[in-house]
């Protein structure tokens, strides 16, 4: 069995799915509170060992413009590092601006989403990313018993493929297959959708598995 595949067995995938489940649950709850919406739904988390080349496509059309919030997180106690990316299609970004910055624009057609957006819009999106991050890191903390601190989040508005590629490069991962934790949230009332991609670096994944008790 391939070195990579033998490391990834059913028990491990199940634990990661549980991690993703709790994380996206927290994120969905947070978003529903922020948006004052009765329901924010989540899809069943996808946990997959994926070919590096296929990862960008997993988060949608690589050529489509999206908003991406990126941050790194580290455990305060062990050598565990990960990078996370929260991706929102531009329609969702517009909706967030309409909803969370009332009065900034009269309707969606007024809103110009680009890398040159105003300070406040950028700030708001980074904060949404920060809050979503908090949900996942709480989940990771719960499962591993460790504390995780994120870096301040950064925002890029650009083509999805470029954003995902940049994040993959930051992981300093050497594998040709990556374990993808992908979760999707939908707001029931409106078209807000978000994907979260979590990539632990090489050694970190092993350490996480050990702490989860799945060797």
């Amino acid at each position, binding site marked *: 069995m391939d070195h990579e595949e033998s490391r990834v067995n059913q028990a491990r995938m199940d634990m990661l799915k549980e991690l993703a489940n709790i994380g996206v649950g927290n994120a969905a709850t947070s978003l529903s509170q922020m948006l004052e919406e009765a329901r924010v739904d989540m899809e069943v988390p996808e946990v997959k060992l994926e070919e590096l080349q296929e990862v960008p496509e997993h988060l949608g059309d690589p050529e489509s413009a999206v908003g991406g919030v990126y941050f790194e997180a580290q455990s305060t106690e062990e050598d565990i590092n990960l990078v996370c990316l929260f991706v929102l299609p531009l329609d969702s970004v517009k909706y967030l601006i309409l909803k969370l910055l009332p009065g900034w624009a009269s309707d969606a057609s007024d809103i110009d989403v680009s890398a040159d957006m105003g300070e406040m819009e950028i700030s708001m999106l980074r904060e949404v990313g920060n809050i979503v991050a908090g949900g996942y890191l709480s989940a990771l903390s719960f499962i591993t018993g460790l504390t995780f601190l994120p870096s301040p989040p950064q925002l890029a508005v650009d083509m999805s493929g470029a954003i995902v590629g940049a994040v993959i*490069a930051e992981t300093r991962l050497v594998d040709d297959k990556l374990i993808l934790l992908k979760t999707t949230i939908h707001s029931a009332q409106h078209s807000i959708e978000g994907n979260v991609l979590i990539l632990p670096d090489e050694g970190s994944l092993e350490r996480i598995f050990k702490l989860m008790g799945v060797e």
Partner: protein
Amino acid sequence: MAGKTTNEIVKVKIADLAVKKGEGTLVTIGLGSCVGVSLYDGIAKVGGLAHVLLSDSTQFSNQKKEQNPAKFADTALPLLVKKMEQQGGQKSRLKAKIAGGSKLFGKNSNIIGVGEKNIQMTRQTLEQMGIPVLAEDVGGDYGRTMKVDVYTGDVTISTVGRGEKKL
């Protein structure tokens, strides 16, 4: 055969490379910190495109597994040349055009990003192989898509919100 195009598009994904001969298009989407390298032999009409993710394979040479050479600038480019030679391209005729190597995140830090390292290693490797760089569209803080017309060797760079550019 001017005017005849099959319009066949070959997509080059991240950490990947491809060669096409005669006509058609090689395209790679989403060059962020990655660097796209187009190599072209105008006489044999052989085009090659690599989407390089990282710069230096030797940093990972202590790994047990074989690394995918297309991932790193220093190994992808020699491999690309080899594949082009298999299709009738000649190294001495090759000309390069490069794009990408941006810093999408961490714009405010002074640390040399992955993108910049990729650009440097790409230029270095091409120089070592004796391949001149005819044009480049590198750096900045935005993503690019790179298309190579295999019949003419023309390269088109497109972006989100910053228009198109021909190299």
